Each structure stands twice: as C-alpha cells, then as structure tokens.
C-alpha cells in the first residue's frame, strides 16, 4: 500500500488537481460548459446512461457489449485469416514477391474510405461494421506475420538443419516459435487498429455501440456523453490489450522485448 502510494500518489494528485481546476473553471464560467462539460456533469451523465440509457433503454453496458462484440468478431476473423496466409507468404519467397505490392496497397487505403463501398456491398447492418474492422486489422496483422516468418534468424535454421530437422518439423519446431514474438506484436497493433476504426464503423445505420453513442450524443449537444463514450472505449481497449500482453508473457516467456519496453 505504501509502495503503491509513493509510486502512483504524485500522478494521482496531479490528476485530482486538474479535475478540480476543470470543475472550478466550468462552474464559474471561465470555460463553456458545452465545450468542456464539468467533471460533475460527466459523472451525472454516467449515472444516467448506466441506469436509463441513452438513447432510451440503451445503457452504457449494452453499448459496450455491442462494440466489444463487433471488434472481437472483426479482429478474430482478421487474425485467423492473416496467420495462415502470412505463414504461407512468408515461407515462400516467390509468393512474397507476388503479394508484396498488394499488401502495401491494401494497407495504405484508409479503412474508413471504404465505408461507402462496403455499404453498397453489405448494406448498413452488422456485417458492414465487422468487415470494416476486420479489414483494418487484417493488413496490420498479415504484414507482421510475414515479417516474423521472413526474418527468422537464418543461423537458427542452419543449426536445426545440422540436427536433420527439415520440412514440416522445421516449421513447427523452429520457424513458428521464432516468429511468435513478432506475431504477438502484430496482434497487439491490429487490436489497436480495431479500436481506431470502431467509431467510424458505427457511424452508419445504428444507434447501438460506443461509436454510435458518441455520434448520437453530438446530435443532442450532450458532449459529456461523447466524453463518456471516449473514456469507455479507452478503458476497454486498455483492458483487452493488457489481457493480450498477459497471454503473450505466458506463451513466450523467453522474450525480453516486453521487459525492455516496460522498464
């Protein structure tokens, strides 16, 4: 407890002071309440949206569940597709040469610029949202899987060959574990992309989901609700990323990369 206090105490204090200053400034007219809703207003908004919902009956919990569901569907589909494809492309250099321009091309198209086309193809229902999220996640993921496989240290492959390990065994016993750290890094980045795309993906054809909530709140001049939507997206993004990081530590305990970054 004491450790905790000395470590987080100062930054917590800064945070509290900022909040207090903000509250003071809005309630005393230094800041426009519509532009900068006071912390107390945000808290009240939260109580409202947690119990009654906004719009009517759609509580923050419903929005969150919907959004997490959409992100996970798109994300898991993208990762599930990118891993085998990436392995295939990374393992065969001719395939890699053939697909490299396509991958750079696909990655360069901002996901949300596809929105009009995707609506034409898939309508304005759930599928459109999941496809957009999946599209964004896919390119980030596949680029990393390919790089992970392609840049396996050749000396490790050489060492394995001296023990007569080749073919599928070489893949399972050397290339896959050697590529894992990079694949996990890709999985974390791809998740980030999923969260970046969500607000745009939920702009059309729905009032459900955190992205939709943010846009809807704007129509009603409820900027405190926009802020709540942002905060919740940030929090669940943080939670899911932490879970992934945990999984990573468990699955690749030999990797030092994480410790170096976190130090």
């Amino acid at each position, binding site marked *: 407890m004491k450790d905790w206090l000395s470590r987080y105490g100062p930054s917590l204090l800064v945070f509290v002071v900022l909040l207090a200053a903000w509250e003071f400034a809005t309630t005393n007219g230094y800041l426009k309440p519509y532009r900068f809703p006071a912390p107390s207003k945000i808290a009240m908004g939260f109580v409202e949206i947690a119990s009654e919902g906004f719009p009517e009956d759609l509580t923050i919990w419903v929005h969150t569940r919907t959004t997490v569901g959409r992100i996970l569907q798109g994300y898991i589909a993208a990762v599930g597709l990118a891993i085998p494809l990436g392995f295939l492309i990374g393992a065969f250099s001719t395939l890699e040469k053939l697909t490299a321009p396509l991958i750079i091309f696909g990655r360069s198209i901002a996901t949300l610029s596809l929105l009009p086309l995707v609506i034409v193809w898939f309508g304005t229902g759930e599928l459109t949202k999941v496809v957009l999220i999946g599209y964004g996640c896919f390119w980030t993921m596949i680029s990393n899987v390919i790089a992970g496989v392609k840049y396996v240290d050749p*000396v*490790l492959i050489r060492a394995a060959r*001296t*023990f*007569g390990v080749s073919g599928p065994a070489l893949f399972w*016993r050397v290339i896959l574990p*050697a590529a894992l750290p990079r694949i996990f890094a890709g999985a974390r980045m791809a998740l980030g992309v999923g969260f970046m795309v969500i607000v745009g993906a939920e702009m059309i054809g729905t009032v459900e989901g955190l992205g939709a909530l943010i846009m809807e709140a704007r129509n009603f001049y409820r900027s405190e609700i926009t802020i709540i939507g942002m905060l919740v997206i940030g929090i669940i993004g943080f939670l899911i990323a932490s879970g992934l990081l945990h999984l990573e530590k468990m699955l*690749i*305990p030999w990797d*030092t990369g994480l410790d170096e970054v976190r130090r």
Partner: protein
Amino acid sequence: MSTDAGFIELNDINMRFGLPAEALPVVLQGIDLSIAQNEFVSIVGRSGCGKTTLLNIVAGLVEATTGTVTIAGNQVRGPGQGQGVVFQQHALFPWLTAMGNVEFGCRKADISKSEKREVCRQLLDLVGLSHAADKYPRELSGGMQQRVAIARALALDPEILLMDEPFGALDELTRIELQQELLRVWDARKKTVIFVTHSITEALILSDRVILLSPHPGRVFKDYQITLPRPRIRTDPAFNAMYQEIWEGLSA
C-alpha cells in the same frame, strides 16, 4: 575407399557463390585435405578467406561448386552424417531452456524420454552447466551459452565436431577456460575436430595440426603438424617458436 584415405577427405573443393553468370569471386580453390580420425585440426586465416564456407561445406549445409567431401568413405550430401556444428554466434533456440536446447540435439528415436533426459543431463554436466538446465539462453553469459551450444552439438553424438570461431566473442579468461574444457571433452569423447579460429595461440593450444588458408581465393597455404607435448604452455619457448613460424606464414 583406398586404404590410406583419411577419415575426412576433401577432394579438390572449389566454391563460388551465386550463378556462374554472376561471375562472383572464387571463394575456395582446389582445397585438398585429409584428416585422420580423432585428429584436432585448426584452420587459421584472415577474415573473409573462406573458413566458414569451408566448414559449412563439410557440415553439408552448403554445397561446393565442384569437388567432394567424404566421411569414412561416404560422400557428404547434407547434414546429419555425423557432423556436429558449433557456430560463431551460439545459435541457441531462445524459446528453449539450456536443457531444451540439448534435447533438441538428441535425435535418438530408440530411447525413452527419461533416458534421453538423462543423456542430456550428463552432457550439461560435462560442460559444467547442470545447475543452469532450466535457464533460457538470454539468462546465460556468453561463455555459458557457448557451453550449451557445445553440449547440444554433442547430443547428436557426432563423430565429427565442426567449430566456427566458437570462442571468438568471449573475453580472454572465459576463452582460456573454454579451451581447457574443450580439450577435456575431446579427451573424454574422442571426436575428430575441425576448429576455425583467427587466433594462432588458440590454434596452438588446441590442435594436432594447423592449416593456414590464404585469401582470394581461399587455398591451403601451409599445413603444420604440432608435435608440442600436451598440456601446452603459452610461455614455453618451443610454443613461441611455433607461434613465430605460423605468424610468418600468415604474414607472407
């Protein structure tokens, strides 16, 4: 197989990387070598003269442009014909513990898991690392990593140990320690060793024979039999005389 042929025979090895049309420089030219069983041979030469390439050819990891390598009369067509390799960088698998790495090297299909574990434990013991069996490579010092790499190569139970500047990246004290260790292992397990180094002292401490490669293209330039009694002493006048002779050969 003729009766006077060595255990390892290199017959007119020529090596040039890439396609003939690329006309890259010749790396190795007309290498003929005959190495006896249990012989400890060092290959010394300047950086870039083709030592690693030569070792890789004997290991079966790289195919010579022309020429053949035979081991006990059988032509080398790939790895796994009794060649254990220790690389310049330890080349340990970072996702396996020291024990896991040694077990990776143990390819015997006819023994049980527990027997296998026992064989590997003995090997770690042999290189003085039984206490570090569960450590990952990144948790080991450079010297310990190279010890694990040696144990891993030995797990294959190879007749031949091919070592490419294995101690080149270590500090001098660790290096001397590992040279002693290697000699002990060589004594205990009777292997034929081809050891690449650019240190004349190291070659003299270890070898029955020192082969000098000349650069561009790599050719066998000198072949010294080292008859100094073992253990070799660095400050011994005969040792120094030999050092001088090889140094002059290298500078020629």
